[in-house]
């Protein structure tokens, strides 16, 4: 069927089941261009699974995921990345043995083939880009530091930077401020607001204060289904949401 849309991301009837357990159940979800959308929900709601499905880590049982009208469900992970989807994991996933500079260099979207990587040269274009990104993520002083020595917050930023250097159209962040100090949270919020210009951002987060601060739109996920969606206020006042979060 031809269902081209103007959305950056259009998820329709997405279902995945693990041995009969439906972690995501007939999910419909749309993400606009330049939108910063936060997904919240209790543990086990299927938030991370949705990200896994989008970036290809988990294969869906049914349904479609369209990114800029391109069907992602049949694509391999690296193809999805190359199409313009970047994903940050829940725990910082960086190369601890390499320096910050090398971490960014590896993520630089050039020389991605076997031959390309053998002949890749660290030229001025590359270095300029690395410096630019490092500045954005507040690590421009730490370029030669081994990534393993960074603070937890800095590691989160580095991973964001590794995505930014690829200039993705869709950026997905899984709990970007988990384990951060108050100051770091503020800085991260600023960072997110800055980088969401010109691209769509999908964030999973628990910290409501932080969510309130960054979100254009919020979706509440519960048992693999959408409970509510809208701006922060609407969602907060939704009786179903209150039931799930406070009730029982």
């Amino acid at each position: 069927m031809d269902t081209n849309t103007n959305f950056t991301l259009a998820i329709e009837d997405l279902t995945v089941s693990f041995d009969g357990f439906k972690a995501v159940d007939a999910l419909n979800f749309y993400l606009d261009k330049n939108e910063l959308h936060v997904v919240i929900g209790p543990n086990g709601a299927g938030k991370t699974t949705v990200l896994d499905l989008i970036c290809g880590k988990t294969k869906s049982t049914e349904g479609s995921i369209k990114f800029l009208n391109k069907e992602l469900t049949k694509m391999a992970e690296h193809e999805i990345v190359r199409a313009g989807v970047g994903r940050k994991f829940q725990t910082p996933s960086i190369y601890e043995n390499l320096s910050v500079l090398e971490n960014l260099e590896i993520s630089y979207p050039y020389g991605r083939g076997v031959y390309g990587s053998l002949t890749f040269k660290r030229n001025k274009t590359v270095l300029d880009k690395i410096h630019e990104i490092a500045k954005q993520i507040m690590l421009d002083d730490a370029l030669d530091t081994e990534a393993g020595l960074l603070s937890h917050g800095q590691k989160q930023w580095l991973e964001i930077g590794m995505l930014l250097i690829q200039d993705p159209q869709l950026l997905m962040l899984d709990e970007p401020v988990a384990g951060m100090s108050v100051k770091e949270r503020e800085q991260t919020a600023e960072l997110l607001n800055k980088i969401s210009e010109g691209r769509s951002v999908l964030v999973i987060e628990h910290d409501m204060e932080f969510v309130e601060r960054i979100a254009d739109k919020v979706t509440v996920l519960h048992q693999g289904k959408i409970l509510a969606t809208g701006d922060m206020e609407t969602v907060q006042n939704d009786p179903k949401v209150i039931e799930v979060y406070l009730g029982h």
Partner: protein
Amino acid sequence: MFDEYTYSELGSIFAMQGFAGISLFSVLLLMALGLAIIFGQMGVINMAHGEFMAVGAYTTYFMSTLTETYFPSLMPYYFLVAIVVAFCVAGVLGYLAEYALIRHLYKRPLDTLLATWGLSLIMQQSFRTLFGAREVSPTLPDWLLGSYQPTDTIDIPLNGMFVLALTAVVTLGVFYLLYKSSWGLRVRATTQNRVMSGAVGINTKSVDRYTFALGCGIAGIAGAAFTTIASTGPTTGTLYIVDTFMVVVFGGAASLIGTIVSAFSIAQAQSLLEFFISGSMAKVYTLFALVLILMFKPEGLFASKVRR
């Protein structure tokens, strides 16, 4: 191929061939059970598994010599005792190996492979020093020799039946231990979430140690049982190790049911192939088919799709 035979002859042959397959199945399963526990539950690649089997076999040999020399009248019964002793000896050695070696390597499965290979070399040389380079065989009690003849044309090997029965007992025992006992619950809990298990008060270190010891002990039982069908030498263990790993991997590492199904299908495939084509090519075809299937289904036959 079958033209010149009567139906009853063919029937007998097929019955015996069927038993040959089942017999191979019980052998493979008994070999693999211990490894399935160690590899499946703990993720440790124990390349010395074959040597723990040899420990069981040598224990049996030792018991046989001992009984023959000091209590000849007890010869008919020693074998049953030997199986228990083999389990204990191999289990204790496994316990020590875990303590000295394995526990330092849980996070590095490929390194356990190398370290246990080193252990296997040391064990082989120890066998050679203790028991000599020659192959040895324990004297078997008469009730294990010969065959059972339900009809004139059918001979069912007694040792095969014994191994089959023993395998059934051990398998049921393992199932009971892992799935019905509280200790089994702790093992499974530890496998699935080590940190959490520790947090709820399970002594994960002791669980590891006893799980490893149990796996080795079962290898010891297997070794004792195999003295009825083959001989024991310092390098006997290496003959079994690849087959054993294939059974476990093919079945899907964490699944005991998988191990059983896998042992059954490998045994049937191999014994049927051997019946129709020459022995060494039958082995090649079987292994080749396994590799091919594993390439398409790397997680083995029985791995549940897990949400990660």
